[in-house]
């Protein structure tokens, strides 16, 4: 038997999808963001959600991680129905996923190491040294220097904040990892580093990864499937290759710009090598 997925094997049998969204509607007042949106994310894939500004990507993510309730529709995450979930189950569920927030969401009064160790300190009875050692490891795993651990979030650059936030998201070896705009605001080198990091983490933890991004390079390099949001629905779904063949105007808008073409050529070149 596969030792690692022992627990998850059982779950896998009845739910091949880690995320199932059915007929999700979201309204803010009279403004409708999602109308009857359906979305499935399969176990183990790297899934991306793209769409124009205001198309409701962040809102969708907030609904997945129980920060926002949709106006109607059902959402199942890791087999749990978010509508009927009990407080206790929700607590366990939160430990099975990790979230990297767009602006880090690190606590300003704790140094980076304590930020990373916080989930373990809060939810387990592991001793302090162990937590510190683990936090230091996750820190290096995310590509930060050990010295950074003793710094405070306001002293870090945007890229370092993202990596530190990622390190905290990894506290419980999440089965499901959400990344909100992991490369936004990073230099090309830093963004490239995140590409590799996402793949390394995927290999190491075999988590399902859901990414919200505008970064075409990241989309071509790491994702298995991509959903394009528009008009309150998923207007296109498939690998980047499949999407690049589709005719929907919103999808074309993504691929036909000069940046879209360059990224595509780049990716195809890489694939050939």
């Amino acid at each position, binding site marked *: 038997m596969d030792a690692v997925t022992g627990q998850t094997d059982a*779950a896998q049998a009845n739910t091949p999808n880690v995320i199932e969204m059915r007929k999700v509607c979201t309204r803010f007042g009279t403004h409708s963001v999602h109308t009857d949106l359906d979305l499935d994310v399969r176990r183990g894939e790297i899934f991306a959600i793209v769409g124009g500004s205001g198309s409701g990507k962040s809102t969708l993510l907030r609904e997945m991680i129980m920060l926002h309730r949709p106006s109607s529709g059902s959402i199942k995450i890791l087999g749990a129905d978010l509508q009927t979930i009990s407080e206790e189950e929700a607590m366990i569920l939160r430990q099975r996923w990790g979230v990297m927030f767009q602006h880090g969401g690190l606590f300003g009064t704790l140094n980076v190491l304590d930020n990373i160790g916080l989930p373990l300190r809060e939810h387990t009875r592991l001793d302090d040294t162990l937590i510190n050692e683990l936090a230091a490891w996750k820190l290096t795993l995310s590509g930060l220097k050990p010295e950074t651990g003793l710094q405070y979030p306001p002293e870090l650059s945007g890229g370092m904040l993202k990596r530190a936030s990622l390190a905290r998201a990894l506290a419980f070896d999440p089965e499901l990892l959400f990344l909100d705009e992991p490369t936004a605001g990073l230099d090309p080198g830093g963004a490239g580093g995140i590409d590799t990091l996402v793949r390394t983490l995927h290999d190491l933890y075999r988590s399902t990864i859901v990414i919200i991004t505008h970064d075409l390079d990241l989309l071509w390099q790491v994702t298995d499937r991509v959903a394009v949001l528009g008009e309150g629905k998923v207007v296109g779904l498939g690998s980047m290759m499949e999407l690049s063949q589709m005719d929907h105007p919103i999808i074309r808008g993504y691929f036909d710009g000069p940046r879209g073409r360059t990224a595509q050529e780049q990716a195809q070149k890489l694939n050939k090598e």
Partner: protein
Amino acid sequence: MQTPLIPADIAQPDPGLFVLTGSWTARAVGDVDRKLVSMSAADAAEVVIDGSHLDTIDSVGVWILQRQLKKIRDKGVSIRLLDWSSHSQKLMEIVEEQIAVPLLQTPQISLLEKIGRKGEAVWKDTFSLLSFIGEAALAFVRIVAHPMRWRVRPTLKYIQIAGFDALPIVGLTSFLLGIVVAYQGADQLRHYGANIFVVDLVGFSMLREFSPLITAIIIAGRSGSAYAAQIGTMVVTEEIDAMRTIGIEPIDLLVLPKIIALAVALPLLTVFSDVTGVLGGMIMARSQLDIGFNEFLVRFGSEIHLPALLIGVGKAFVFAFIIVIIGCYQGFRTKGNADSVGRQTTRSVVQSIFIVIVLDSLFSVIFSMLDL
């Protein structure tokens, strides 16, 4: 939906064999660490770690295990993994490398160094406060030279917020203070049949001391803190930086209007506080000492002269500067996060009240030397 987790456990059927069972995950490792620490591989040449009964293992589990294995390995015993999934094996290898890296320690600071650092911080703090006052003064000179650049609207708004809106609380507090002063005095004065002196007591103490002081304290708590929080939040959201890049001096826009506004509002509030305070004393004098309003006011007019009022108002004028300068200065010193905004706000209130009281006692000494 959840299969219950079987807690992690370890058994050692013979010295060279460790059998792992259950879930070695952050949530289920429990006390297995303690059990693990007591296990050693006494005189075995090789230890086999049997992973075939393992449900699942994550990085916490692997870390705990490798921590103990490192001690065993250091004794020259070799380790072999038996029946481990390729994925967990990979995790084990990565952790094995990582665990050898020593943990970075927070540097220890000696007491002497702490005192030194603290002293340096206080020194720098004083210096930057002085330079802030200098900047504000320069800004003031600038707008005197170019009155067109004076921001009238914000100034009027601040007069309304800090002055007019504070009338009820200042009025009520002073009224009660007047009552208290008259009441305390009444008892003593009645013994000597010097009832009428309650007018002097209430008049002088309110006009010269209590009104300016209580008004300044209320405004420091009410407006000084608001100034610090407003500017602090703007620092955090980079609004101050944006202002500088657009070419607006933050001091011109945020500090000067407040100074001018409070320099107008605080003396006026003090006069209002004088009125309500004396009114409180007057009411108390009638009910406790049988001094009618008329009698009270006649004596008040003949005994309390203009200097008493002016001294109080003059003090209020100085206090206004203190409150705005300290509030804005602490706001500008905010660093980066929400916690810092709170800290600077608290500091602004504590410091400005402290300085106001110190100055007030200084004034008392100076005035008595000048026979005022």
